[in-house]
């Protein structure tokens, strides 16, 4: 039924036209400009801009910390979602609402407070630094703040799926003689897997692009704690627009790939869910 409604409900041309215009002006044209700018470099120049040792270290750091943080989020998010769906405990509603704080809290605030919590005199640093755990101006600092930023993604994708899981399936497993652990591993986990993967991908993508909080906590030391977006800002500050565009193109391609992947995953998990 290609256009059952098109002829009946009004406003198709206006709404679609405006949508496309807005997207073009705000997204498509600027993104094209970015690719054009980068294309004005010769291949060698482009390569020189995006593949310096410093840039490679930054990519590795960005991907590495995002990956570790997203993996941590899978474990923590699964736990939080499980507790929220399955158990009743005091202040549960506040607990539930606070899960979304990383969505609502400006990243600069997160960066600010995470940078001071883990220094030697900070609330948590005073216990951790003597143990040799450097939770600020280090790679660990980046992982910590990215874990904070990404926490809601896994929780909020797993939570509804877990809530929709039929009790009968677990009861059936129990009747067939499975232990609780076996039921979890063989019955519950497989049905949560698509949601977990989607949540992981979302947290990972968010980590790749994150800037505000990381610049506060990392110290931005080249080769050590400098993430890829910082390279762009650094290039811009030196008025190297083409180089900035080149690095942006690398990040864009990476994140577009992520977007396609997330889309596929969402479709996969939806099909699986049904």
């Amino acid at each position: 039924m290609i256009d059952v409604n098109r002829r009946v409900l009004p406003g198709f041309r206006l709404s679609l036209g405006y949508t496309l215009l807005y997207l073009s002006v705000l997204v498509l044209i600027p993104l094209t400009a970015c690719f054009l700018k980068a294309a004005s470099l010769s291949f060698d120049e482009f390569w020189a801009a995006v593949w310096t040792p410093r840039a490679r270290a930054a990519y590795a750091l960005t991907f590495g910390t995002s990956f570790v943080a997203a993996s941590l989020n899978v474990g923590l998010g699964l736990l939080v979602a499980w507790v929220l769906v399955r158990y009743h405990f005091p202040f549960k509603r506040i607990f539930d609402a606070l899960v979304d704080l990383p969505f609502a809290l400006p990243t600069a605030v997160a960066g600010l407070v995470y940078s001071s919590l883990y220094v030697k005199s900070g609330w948590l640093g005073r216990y951790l630094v003597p143990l040799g755990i450097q939770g600020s101006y280090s790679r660990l600092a980046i992982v910590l703040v990215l874990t904070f930023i990404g926490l809601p993604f896994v929780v909020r994708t797993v939570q509804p799926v877990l809530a929709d899981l039929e009790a009968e399936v677990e009861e059936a497993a129990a009747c067939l003689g499975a232990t609780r652990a076996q039921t979890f591993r063989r019955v519950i986990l497989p049905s949560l897997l698509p949601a977990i993967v989607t949540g992981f991908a979302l947290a990972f993508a968010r980590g790749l692009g994150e800037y505000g909080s990381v610049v506060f906590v990392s110290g931005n030391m080249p080769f050590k704690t400098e993430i890829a977006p910082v390279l762009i800002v650094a290039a811009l500050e030196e008025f190297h627009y083409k180089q900035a565009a080149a690095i942006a193109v690398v990040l864009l391609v990476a994140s577009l790939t992520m977007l396609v992947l997330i889309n596929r995953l969402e479709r996969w998990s939806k099909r699986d869910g049904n």
Partner: protein
Amino acid sequence: MAIDVTAGAATTRRRAQEDPWLVRWTLVTIAAAVMAVLVVVPLANVFYEALARGPQAYWNSLVGDADTLSAILLTLRVAPLAVLANVVFGLAAAWAIARFRFPGRTLLIAMIDLPFAVSPVVAGLIFVLIFGLQGYLGPWLREHDIKIIFATPGLILATAFVTFPFVARELIPLMEAIGAEEETAAVSLGARAWQIFRRITLPNIKWGLLYGIILCNARAMGEFGAVYVVSGHIGGQTDTMPLRVEKLFQEYNTAGSYALASLLSSLALVTLLVKTALEWQTRHELRSRLRESLPDGDGGGAAAQPLRPRVVPPEHRPATTAERSEETTGVGISVKNVTKRFGDFVALDDVNVEVPHGALLALLGPSGSGKTTLLRIIAGLDVPDSGSIHYQEEDATHRSARDRNVGFVFQHYALFRHMSVFENVAFGLRVRRWPNAKVEERVHELLRLVQLDGLGRQSPSQLSGGQRQRVALARALAAEPKVLLLDEPFGALDAKVRQELRHWLRKLHDEIHVTSVFVTHDQEEAFEVADRVVVMNRGRVEQAGTPQEVFEHPANAFVMDFLGNVNVFHGRVEGGRALLGSFEVAMPEYPHDESRPVKAYVRPHELEIDRLPRGASSLKADVLRINPAGSAVKVELLAKDFGVPINIELGQERYAELQLKTGDTVFVFPKRVRVFVQDFQI
């Protein structure tokens, strides 16, 4: 959105007992510890640091610092503008995507997610590359003295880019879940685009829209990376709140930094509060919507009184256009050579139907036969690929649904959920700008007609299914339509209410005489209510006529089959005789020698039972089951020799006479047989 609102609470409680106490509390404690370290401690730290030097110092570092104050004001300017732009975009995108199908739709949906995947720094950079001094438009902008980058417009652009998915992402699934039924109903009642949006769509999506705005705003106020790149950090001019937090931090002004951070944190907490409240609101609404959509009888609603046909004196009858125009006995609606395809599927294949003026016609057929498509085409809710629709000689094919002045009753009522019964009925009049007094009078008149007077102030959700259906009918009749169209009007009701409403609809039609067409797959319903019946199959009209004609003289095997409750015998025909098991029927219409397969149909009351065979044309059968309840005794038999099950209806007297028991072997005789060779009938 698969939110299981009915079962959720109960199952959670039941499952919770499965895990031992120790496991439960260990897990809860660990989760609480994780949340404390990741979320609560940092939040507490912000407020602690901000207020550590006392409220006076706190106040001074916020308002006393001119640059901080201007950063607050700048954010309060930038964020609302970006949100406003994204709300307009979100509404347009949701309308296009949730209400229409078009090529590239999936791609468009994916594009809306782009900002989630693009690093904010890149988002800022792309605007610098276009509008910056060295950018593509830079020289032109400088010539005309327009500043975008390092100025407020750039901040708004960057913020809008980063936050534009939020409203659209919220509205698209919501509008898809709500469906287009109510909006389609509004079109059929004559509403214009703006009226539909303001009176139907907006009230339905208001909570979701607010939710999207809240998220969008939170992100807009807090955006850092994109804004950082385009701002240029001109103190007091282009520093937003988050940028100011960073600058103060770099200047080692920790107190000022934390003070501003605490303000932002408070905003985040307010966001969470509103968000949680809205989630409860929408969940509550979804739940009541779910309850509404459950089929129910006439029991649950307010004051369900039995429907008694009421004689309305002619002078009190609501006038219809049809009645007011001089009595034409001609054709009310004619459908001429209408064809409609959906892709490869032919929904209607050269269909011709005539509805006599003032008649009540039933479109009868199995699902997928095209009857609803035909009804929607008559209403103007669908457009035929070829052919035409005439209302009393007047070509209406190219008139929109809004201008056709039809009353359409939707299968699931499509009542406007946020309006009272009164306002639902009044809708078609309000969009036509009737004066209030007349609206009042007309609505009360109609509520009396459908016997719902006194329920005008109820909301549709408080009514039973049957009552809702009558509201839908009153709403369709309000604007004095030329024709009344009903799509499976009783489909969603239970058997008893259905029966009652059927009689009532017949009575109502006898009173108001508006040319009416209704769709049904229930032959009993069609025969009981309609003046004329059109039987459809696979997009074609199989037969049209009065109920009596169709029942007594089915045009072909399909009609016979579809009318149902019939015994089918397979056999062969040759030389003017049809052989069906051990029956033999004369068939002079087929004198050919070539033998062909035939199907013979015998209705259950057209078969007789006897203990002994009577000549050649009888069939030996065993009694399998007897159901003596009801006016006729239903007997199920099996003709073992041919493996044919047979159903027979006997009169009570004959049954008593025969003294039938299960297991008896008897002989069956047909009183009347209809034999079809292909489309060829005796």
